[in-house]
């Protein structure tokens, strides 16, 4: 191997001069850490992977029925969110499953039906679709079809989602809208370590089954001072991260950070005051916070990585125009992934990046 490395080094030198192209693109956003703490008390610097690990650790410690499972979860999961938990809580509580997403979801529904707390990991949100039947037809409808006798609210399905720079078709998708369409499921997306811990603990304690989509690019790149104690953040509540009075910018997950940056650019370059809202909870979503903001600003931009058509932005836009029609100064704008599969080398052109969002803000203001 060392001989090979040497050889590679020598040819590496030879092609250095001709190749300016293969430097990987830097990430498309700047992470904006939270300044406010959700609770008082001691904090610790954690990335989002560690914050999720911490939330699951707290659950396994306090809830003896809780189990955590999925593909490769035993050694910590491919993104290491379960790192050390099998050693701490044993193989009957933190374990590998066979490679079968429909099995993972169905198994989780069964656990929850029988009174246990189930935290199921799907390795990538792109691979959640074999579980679609279990989640949409079973988890979502269990309470309704039994007249409230049975439910699987103790099920939380975690899945890494979103763009990562080089994930291509099957390691990049954001499937939140598919699940938001299935009445009975709650769909949550955190924007960083603090929200991840609080929202995941809420999902686990929530009386309805939750799909918790974790923007995978934040696992390691996002660091915050996270309270070490247990805390929850309310499901169904959005957060206003930056106040403004000319344009309301709405996003969730990684895209929140794009909009925070864009809001600053808009302020600096053409003096436009933007209000930035992190929806956090896709289903149910916080109509009150969103509509109050749009009534104030009269302009609204929604941005998400998922494709435009039937993306969750469409649902927001429809409700906003219904509720805020007479306040609107311009049509609601959506900046999203294009209506194509998520492409590998074209990712920089596919994402709703800062420049596409900035242009949309300009158009909103000049309408």
């Amino acid at each position, binding site marked *: 191997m060392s001989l*090979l*490395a040497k*050889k*590679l080094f020598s*040819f*590496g030198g*030879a*092609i250095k001069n*001709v*190749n300016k*192209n*293969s*430097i*990987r*693109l830097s990430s498309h956003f700047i992470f904006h850490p939270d300044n406010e703490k959700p609770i008082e008390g001691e904090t610790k610097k954690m990335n989002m992977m560690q914050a999720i690990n911490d939330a699951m650790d707290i659950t396994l410690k306090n809830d003896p029925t809780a189990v955590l499972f999925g*593909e*490769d979860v*035993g*050694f*910590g999961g*491919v993104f290491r969110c379960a790192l050390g938990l099998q050693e701490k809580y044993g193989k009957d509580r933190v*374990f*590998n499953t*066979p*490679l*079968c*997403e*429909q*099995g993972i979801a169905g198994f989780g529904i069964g656990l929850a039906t029988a009174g246990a707390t189930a935290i199921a990991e799907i390795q990538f949100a*792109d*691979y959640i*679709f*074999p579980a679609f039947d279990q989640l949409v037809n079973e988890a979502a409808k269990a309470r309704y079809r039994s007249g409230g006798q049975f439910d699987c609210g103790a099920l939380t399905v975690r899945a890494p989602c979103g763009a990562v*720079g*080089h*994930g*291509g*078709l*099957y*390691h990049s998708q954001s499937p939140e809208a598919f699940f938001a369409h299935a009445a009975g499921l709650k769909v949550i997306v955190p924007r960083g370590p603090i929200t991840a811990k609080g929202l995941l603990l809420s999902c686990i304690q929530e009386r309805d089954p939750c799909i918790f989509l974790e923007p995978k690019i934040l696992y390691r790149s996002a660091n915050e001072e996270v309270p070490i104690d247990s805390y929850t953040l309310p499901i169904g509540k959005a957060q206003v991260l930056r106040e403004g009075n000319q344009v309301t910018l709405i996003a969730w997950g990684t895209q929140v950070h794009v909009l925070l940056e864009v809001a600053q650019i808009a302020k600096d370059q053409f003096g436009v005051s933007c209000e930035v809202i992190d929806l956090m909870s896709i289903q149910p979503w916080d109509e009150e916070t969103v509509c109050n903001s749009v009534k104030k600003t009269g302009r609204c931009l929604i941005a998400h990585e998922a494709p*435009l*058509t039937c993306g969750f932005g469409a649902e927001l836009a429809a409700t906003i125009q219904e509720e805020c029609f007479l306040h609107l100064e311009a049509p609601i704008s959506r900046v999203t992934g*294009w*209506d*194509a*599969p998520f*492409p*590998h*080398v*074209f990712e*920089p*052109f*596919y994402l709703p*990046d800062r*420049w*596409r969002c900035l*242009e949309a803000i300009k158009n909103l203001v000049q309408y």
Partner: protein
Amino acid sequence: MALKCGVSFMRLAQLHKTIRCLSTRTRPETINNGGSHAAFPGVKAPYTTEIKFLNEHSYEPIPIYRVLDNNGEVIDSREEPDIDNDTLLNMYRTMIQLNQMDKILYESQRQGRISFYMTNYGEEGIHVGSAAALSPSDLVFAQYREAGVLLYRGLTVTELVNQCYGNHEDPAKGRQMPVHYGSKQRNIVTISSPLATQMPQAVGAAYAFRRAGSGRVVTCFFGEGAASEGDAHAAFNFAATLNCPIILMCRNNGYAISTPTSEQYRGDGVAARGPAAGLHTVRVDGTDALAVYNAVKKARQLAVCNTPVLLEAMSYRVGHHSTSDDSSAYRSTDEIQKWTQEESPARKMRLYLERKGLWSEKQEAEQVREGREVVIRAMQRAEKEKKPNWREMLHDVYYDMPPILLKQMKQMESHLEKYKEHYPLEQYQDEENTA
């Protein structure tokens, strides 16, 4: 008969016939039934009066067919395949080329030149053994660790490297992650990342071949991890019930990322499911290219007559799952040792060829050097080539571009006109390929 008996019982009961009458009319039939085969539509099986649960120890494990021992010596001369020398050499050269490509592309990912890679170490024997035994017109549905099949079929290193770089020479236009190869010309369906999805598709393709009377068969590769997916069950069941000309080729390499087979399944591996599903089934030593060749050759003879076959090739995943994985987190390096030494498929094949006087140390050194140079030259070329024009992002979603995509394309065109300095346009072709 059982149903008829039941109906007559009910009718008689309703008519309030005497108990005695009932018993005299039904008892003789029940007694007759005791020793004969049941007539249930679901299964043809004898009756028994003993409750006996079957378990994984009820049957002998399915044996592993091999031709070569670890020293490359033929164990039973009757089993030595009749392969001409050129083909044997081509098989081994493909193994060397594959190893060299894996070494260099793996390192190139580590240097940030490509975004991702997966090596094939330990499974070379399955690749070349099966590819040599198939007809080039047979359709292959691969998983993602079968690059040797592609090389053997004649895809060039340059073609594979171009895919990994996602440049404009990549037939899939840079849209997929590295190692997601495919070639219409070479009858290899483009690889998709989701596991086992290709399996029922392969069975469907085989059914189409059967109806067309084409004499082609389909070979579907999948791992023992993928065999846990619901799609795998569907594929086995469809293949058997619809009598499809297919070889379902399981590469059992011991690991699905970190998950060992002990946590993937119980019982006698994937092969044991074959007879249960009504598939002709054989288990083979995947580190022995000649054993794989013989098994696939025979499997193909069955498949072409619409007898579907399940083949489980035992091997070991010597490399990490991918460049995103560090397998030292879940297995020891000692464990790997054996599979890189005496159980190495390339080594066994090399020793066999040396015994036959077809290979020498000198040829080995030359082939390794040449194999490496081919990859390096391909990389140097691939790195100079631009990525496809960005508009390729929106093509091929539909056959004809619908109005909404045309609109989105125009939006992006005018956006790039205004903001071009913020996009890496110089890395992409200016114009779309017209070819």
